[in-house]
């Protein structure tokens, strides 16, 4: 089939109007010639003989009647061994290689192979001639870093097919054919180490989707205990600028208990990507002892890179995530920030002169966001293994106001909400997740009842705090005052966490359970004080000791010592209280 061609009939920003010959499909990729350059674009609307195309690059210099070639293919990514440790732009161009070729700047019209074509991978077949396979089943494996990377039957294979031939164990490049499949009609399908897949189509070559049940431990106490995330779940982090969204994402990307982390830096500061880029190779993965980079893929389309590719970048990221899930791995996709992606949709929608919805976002914003988050999830594969994609997206609401369309559309489809508050970040209470506004539908690392009790205490403490602002300390009963101090104490030593401390910065699940039990005991303790000042002093000291406890590694003697000290203080007070009341 020869591909269609067309000619430019209009240019408006990154939008082209093209008059075409032949057949063109929606979301097909095309290239427009601008002098020497061939710039990549995507069909986003068809009207009669004219198509609207969004260009993934700057459109300066394009003129009327410039030639456009349609490729007949949807916007796709390359999936195969060699994705891990890479840094791609939104269209899967490897940035370091681009830098080698073009220097400091991103030259438009330069597209490189995502996977190196000359690297040899050691392929071990897992099937033999005559085996019947369906889409997504494993043909063989190659080692990729710390993982066994499964080479799978192309995800678009309809029905079943028999293995007609398969190669011997040996070294092959990504474009070598390693097996040939034949179906009942005699149609043949080649299996290569690499396959291509359109980014906007979910990979569904699994058996069924399951309900996420197991917690994904992030080692952030307020998350794991209070607002947990499940493996295969979705969550969002909205917050005003400076509240610590990106830092929270960076910490999560380091400690999260998953196999693979995909960081989609979408329309944010380049400097933040650079920190990840330069620091990750130096950091060790607490699970494997290898470099963190070994389990990471970075897709970055920073704020000054072309807007259309920003929209593509989240899809590229989720497609790579689906590919690794298909191998039975647990994948975490961190998208920072989904608001920038929504803004990209808004820009395109504006140029198409569509009727705007709220704040000029397109009317289909909600369904687009929903279908993105729905690509996450826990699945059981055809061979019974499980794989998951957990999606965590930050949202940057205009003016820090959560009532705006992107936050609201996101809240409808996620399973957990970690709302960051300016008040908490101004008070340096990090992580600045608001304990009263946030919620989660997933299961905590500690039991439900305890969490509920802690919640109730925090809420009551905040109420008393509000009241105290009006009536003063003197107008508050000493019982209420102690409740207030208990809530503040829980906040200070459990919700807040020092990200820069090696021990406090990452609290494992069993430590959380252990510490939370102690917290619970303190919350329920019948503490009595003669005066408010005495109570304040007591909790002030208790906070100091507990903070030291948080900094002590669990396997050291100091941990036990400090724990005894804390418990000692409580018992001492309780005993005093008893003797006081018996007097």
């Amino acid at each position, binding site marked *: 089939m020869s591909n269609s061609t067309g000619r*430019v*009939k*209009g*240019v*408006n920003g990154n939008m082209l*109007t093209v008059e075409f010959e032949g057949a063109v499909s929606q979301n097909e990729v095309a290239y427009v010639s601008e002098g020497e350059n061939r710039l990549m674009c995507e069909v986003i609307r068809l009207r009669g003989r004219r198509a609207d195309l969004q260009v993934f690059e*700057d*459109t*300066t*210099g*394009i*003129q*009327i009647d410039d030639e456009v070639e349609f490729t007949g293919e949807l916007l796709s990514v390359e999936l195969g061994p060699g994705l891990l440790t890479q*840094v791609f732009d939104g269209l899967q161009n490897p*940035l*370091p290689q*681009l*830098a080698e070729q*073009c*220097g*400091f*700047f*991103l*030259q*438009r019209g330069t597209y490189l192979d995502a996977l190196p074509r000359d690297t040899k991978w050691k392929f071990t077949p897992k099937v033999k001639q005559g085996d019947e396979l369906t889409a997504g089943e494993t043909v063989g494996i190659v080692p990729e870093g710390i993982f066994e990377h499964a080479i799978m039957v192309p995800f678009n294979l309809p029905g079943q097919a028999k293995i007609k031939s398969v190669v011997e164990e040996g070294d092959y490049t990504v474009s070598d054919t390693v097996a040939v499949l034949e179906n009942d009609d005699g149609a043949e399908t080649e299996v290569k180490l690499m396959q291509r897949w359109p980014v906007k189509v979910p990979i569904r070559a699994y058996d069924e989707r399951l309900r996420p049940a197991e917690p994904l431990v992030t080692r952030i106490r307020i998350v794991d205990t209070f607002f947990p995330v499940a493996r295969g779940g979705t969550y969002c982090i909205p917050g*005003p*600028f*400076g509240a610590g969204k990106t830092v929270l994402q960076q910490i999560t990307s380091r400690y999260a208990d998953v196999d693979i982390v995909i960081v989609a830096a979408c*329309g944010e*500061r*380049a*400097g933040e*990507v*650079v*920190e990840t*880029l*330069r620091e990750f190779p130096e950091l060790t993965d607490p699970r494997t002892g290898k470099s963190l980079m070994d389990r990471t893929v970075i897709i*970055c389309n*920073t*704020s*000054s*890179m072309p*807007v259309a590719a920003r929209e593509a970048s989240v899809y590229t990221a989720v497609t790579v995530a689906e590919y690794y899930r298909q191998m039975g791995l647990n994948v975490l996709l961190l998208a920072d920030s989904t608001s*920038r992606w929504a*803004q*990209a949709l*808004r*820009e395109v929608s*504006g140029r198409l*002169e569509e009727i*705007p919805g709220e*704040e*000029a*976002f397109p009317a289909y914003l909600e369904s687009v966001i929903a279908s993105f988050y729905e690509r996450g999830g826990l699945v059981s594969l055809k061979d019974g293994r499980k794989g998951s994609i957990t999606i965590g997206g930050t949202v*940057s609401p*205009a*003016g*820090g*106001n959560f009532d705006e369309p992107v936050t609201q559309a996101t809240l409808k489809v996620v399973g957990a909400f970690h709302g960051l508050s300016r008040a908490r970040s*101004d008070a340096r209470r990090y992580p600045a997740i608001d304990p009263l506004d946030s919620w989660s539908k997933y299961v905590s690392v500690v039991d439900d009842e305890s969490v509920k009790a802690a919640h109730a205490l925090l809420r009551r403490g905040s109420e008393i705090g509000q009241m105290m602002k009006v009536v003063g300390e003197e107008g508050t009963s000493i019982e209420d005052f102690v409740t207030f101090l208990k809530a503040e104490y829980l906040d200070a030593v459990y919700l807040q966490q020092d990200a820069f401390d090696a021990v406090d910065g990452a609290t494992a699940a069993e430590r959380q359970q252990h510490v939370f039990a102690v917290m619970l005991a303190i919350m329920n303790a019948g503490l009595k004080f003669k005066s408010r000042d005495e109570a304040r002093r007591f909790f002030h000291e208790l906070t100091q000791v507990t903070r030291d406890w948080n900094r002590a590694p669990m396997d050291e003697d100091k941990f036990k010592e400090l724990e005894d000290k804390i418990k000692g203080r409580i018992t001492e007070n309780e005993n005093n209280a008893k003797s006081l009341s018996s007097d």
Partner: protein
Amino acid sequence: MQKVYHQIDHIAGNVITVRADGVKYRDLAQVTSRHTTSLAQVIRLQDDSVSLQVFAGGRGVSTDARVRFLGRSMQVPYSEALLGRIFTGGAVPRDKGPQITENLIDIGGPSVNPAKRIIPRNMVRTGIPMIDVFNTLVESQKLPVFARAGEPYNPLLARIALQAEVDVIVLGGMGLKHDDYLYFRDTLESSGALSHTVMFVHTAADPVVECLLVPDISLAVAEKFALEGKRVLVLLTDMTNFADAMKEIAITMEQIPSNRGYPGDLYSQLAARYEKAVDFEGAGSITILAATTMPGDDVTHPVPDNTGYITEGQFYLRNGRIEPFGSLSRLKQQVNGKTRDDHRTIMNTLIQLYSGYRETVEKQSMGFRMGEWDNKLLKYGKRFEAEMMDLSVNIPLEQALDLGWEILADCFDAIETGIQSDLLEQFWPK
């Protein structure tokens, strides 16, 4: 041979539409009518009609105006000869010097490959304690100054420009009052800094389209200097005027507005400019300081709000002082560990105590009785405001740190400051 077109179809605001062929997107054209001559840039192509944005504005453009396409997009001359010169937003000399035409470079070039960026590591010394001590400015940082109209943000920028140790200063003025423009010129001239400064100034009286060009021109020139190994400081004032100019054009072009009339791509447009701040590995750097006035002193207004999401922190200028709360340099951790051992401790302690002072002042105004500790805080707060926060204070970092210790020792006992004992031993004035 360039064709000349005579038939203008529409004139709306600063945008004219003409029928022409062989025109490239973003090309420049010369529009000549009876009363005016101006450059114009192609902003939309639709079949054979070409929409252009006229730099000098649509006023006086007649339907029989001559439109001559130049076959190139907007460029700016670049050479060492730029230093010491002042231009308009259209790169036409504003001083009495000659027009420079050599070595034209494109403006609004591609962005830097993130893989080629490095983690910033050099402090920019300004001699202003509120910056050097508390929110250190770092080379390659992009930082806005948020202020209400009427705050002295321009004098602040001028002072930083004079005192920062940089090789080249590029000043981009947008919608500047003519007085402010003269203030910048005279201040830089009298201190001798004009000799390593290039100014692109659009005053409030100039055509609005030229305002749009100022950041791109300034940053294109800055980028060239940086690639030649120069440390460049770019001052942009005022970015809110730039955003308003974009709003004006977008509305004229009948684009759908998103928030308070601003175009939907406000974030991307601002980011494209601010992200030019960079430290080139093996070459120079660009640091951007930009004044952003907050209409109604409202930080949630779209311009400061979008800016805050893009930049690496912000300085709040309030009542003529840099506000210690709310102001933030996101990159300060990269450098303030390497200056002096007591830097971070002094930074935190002084701020904590100052926050205590603010609370005490509140209590005092409500008529509560002042205790001994309150009186200490009051004494401290007054000295801190006069000797650290006042913008006229001009001392190097080390001296500012020493002053911090001196003020602490004057107002408090060592134990009351909560400073760890080894630092007290080393630095506490005896």
